[in-house]
């Protein structure tokens, strides 16, 4: 079976003042259509770098990314990114932020009325239709991230790239946003690649968890398939045997990695 999104032997290195530092070496990963894959690892291990390569913001020195049988070069709306710090344009309202993306992606295929409806539809998906006329500065951090998700969804991407989307939020807000993402994933069957450093978040949302080794020259350590029925309920999950088993496995990997680095 050929996978939908295929990351093949990616290598990334940065040069600074003549010193080359290798960030990623020989990273290969296949993601199926509709699959939710989380990438977890210690900070600085290159997980965001990997996401930026898939997003096209960064050129790898080796390897290639293939999406839907086409090689990827440069960024594009079919690989929409939800940035960690939401990256809404502060001079535009929430509606206009999403509209900018919709106009650019569907400017030639949808009529003005259809585009307007599509913007509102996506704002409704993240339960933010009521804030359409507000500026990003007038809404909370969690709401901003919702708008960021709506903007990415509105591009109708083939794959949704989430770069630690909830990292900057408090625990309660984070939980409600995780539910939003899980709900959207279930409803529209989006293919998702998410960077995270939160073990519970990874297990709650993912079909597979990719654990990365520590840099320099980081790679994929282990891949864990999360075989829990959906929809997953975070309360019921806390008492689930398998959930705790998964949790244990991921934590063990992360702590072993830290011990190796400290040694």
């Amino acid at each position, binding site marked *: 079976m050929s996978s939908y999104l295929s990351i093949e032997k990616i290598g990334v290195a940065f040069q600074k003042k003549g010193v080359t530092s290798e960030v990623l070496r020989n990273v290969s990963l296949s993601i199926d259509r509709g699959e939710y894959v989380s990438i977890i690892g210690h900070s600085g291990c290159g997980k965001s770098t990997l996401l930026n390569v898939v*997003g*096209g*913001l960064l050129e790898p020195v080796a390897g290639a990314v293939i999406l839907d049988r086409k090689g990827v070069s*440069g*960024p*594009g*709306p079919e*690989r*929409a*990114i939800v*940035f960690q*710090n939401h*990256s809404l*344009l*502060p*001079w535009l309202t929430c509606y206009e932020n999403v509209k*900018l*993306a919709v106009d*650019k*992606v569907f400017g030639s295929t949808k009529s003005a009325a259809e585009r307007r409806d599509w913007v509102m539809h996506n704002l*409704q998906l993240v*339960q*933010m*239709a*009521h*804030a359409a006329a507000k*500026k990003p*500065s007038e*809404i*909370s951090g*969690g*709401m901003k991230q919702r708008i960021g998700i709506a903007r990415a969804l509105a*591009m109708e991407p083939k794959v949704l790239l989430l770069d630690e989307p909830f990292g900057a939020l408090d625990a*309660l*807000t984070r939980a*409600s946003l995780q*539910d*939003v993402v*899980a*709900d959207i994933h279930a*409803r529209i069957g989006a293919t998702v690649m998410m960077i995270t450093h939160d073990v519970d978040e990874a297990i709650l949302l993912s079909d597979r968890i990719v654990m990365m080794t520590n840099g320099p020259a980081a790679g994929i350590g282990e891949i864990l398939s999360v075989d829990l029925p959906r*929809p997953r*309920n975070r309360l019921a999950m806390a008492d689930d045997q398998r959930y705790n088993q998964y949790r244990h496995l991921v934590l063990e990997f992360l702590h072993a990695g830290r011990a190796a680095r400290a040694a």
Partner: protein
Amino acid sequence: MPAVAVKPNPAPAEIAGPAPSPSKIVRLPRPRRASVGLMEAIGSILGNVIPPLLLILLVSFIWQSLCSDPTSLFPSPATIWTESRELIVNPFFDRGGVDRGLFWHVTTSLSRVAVGFTAAAFVGVFLGVWVGASKWAQRAFDPIFQVLRTVPPLAWLPISLAMFREAQPSALFVIFITAIWPVIINTAVGIRNLPQDYLNVGRVLRLSPPEMFFRIMAPAATPYIFTGLRIGIGMSWLAIVASEMLLGGVGIGFFIWDQYNASRISDIIVALIWVGLVGYALDRFVALLGHFASRGSAQS
């Protein structure tokens, strides 16, 4: 303040459960404060107006008591009122030559500032974008800008007179060369400080270079540009008054110099108040423009 009260309660949306039902927006009951609001507004206006008024009265009183002696070299407020009454009450008279109301002098100076400053704004923003966007342009121009911007406005005047040989273009040039540096430097800073995230948003959307400039870069730099414009217009007003004193002919600066030669100190004081008020109005005007142009994100 009332905005807080009518803000839709964000709590239901934030803690909405996994069910896909759209969350309800709960409005907080609007407190009855219409009459209170009016009183508050009047109170805040009074609170802002009374202290400066009191201070002005106090200073005038001290000034009056210090300068009321007939041999005093400096006119007291009462003397100014009697000597320069026509200048104060009627800014619009025009008897030809320099013998005109202050309104006409200020208008002449303002029209010079308008021309010189507009040119400086356009050229400055253009150069600033270039210097901000291109590393090589920055390396080449920045040291030159940093040196030239410290040259005082009046130091440009002799060169400008030598170049143009006439008062009007020389004044315009001095305005231009004074106002352009803050515009260039602030615009360049705005372009250089453009958050990479905004550019990434543009890249993901595959915006064309012109779209990137007009949809992302220009709006993001607008608050910086208007900071530069505000400093620039303030400096041009400083420069025009000073250069008109030397150039002669017309304008508020020349009026002040002319009254000095005629030993009419009272008229000078009235003119100074005009200069201050007009300078303040210019600053507010550009700040307000910036507030609208940046859709509220620039300080006004």
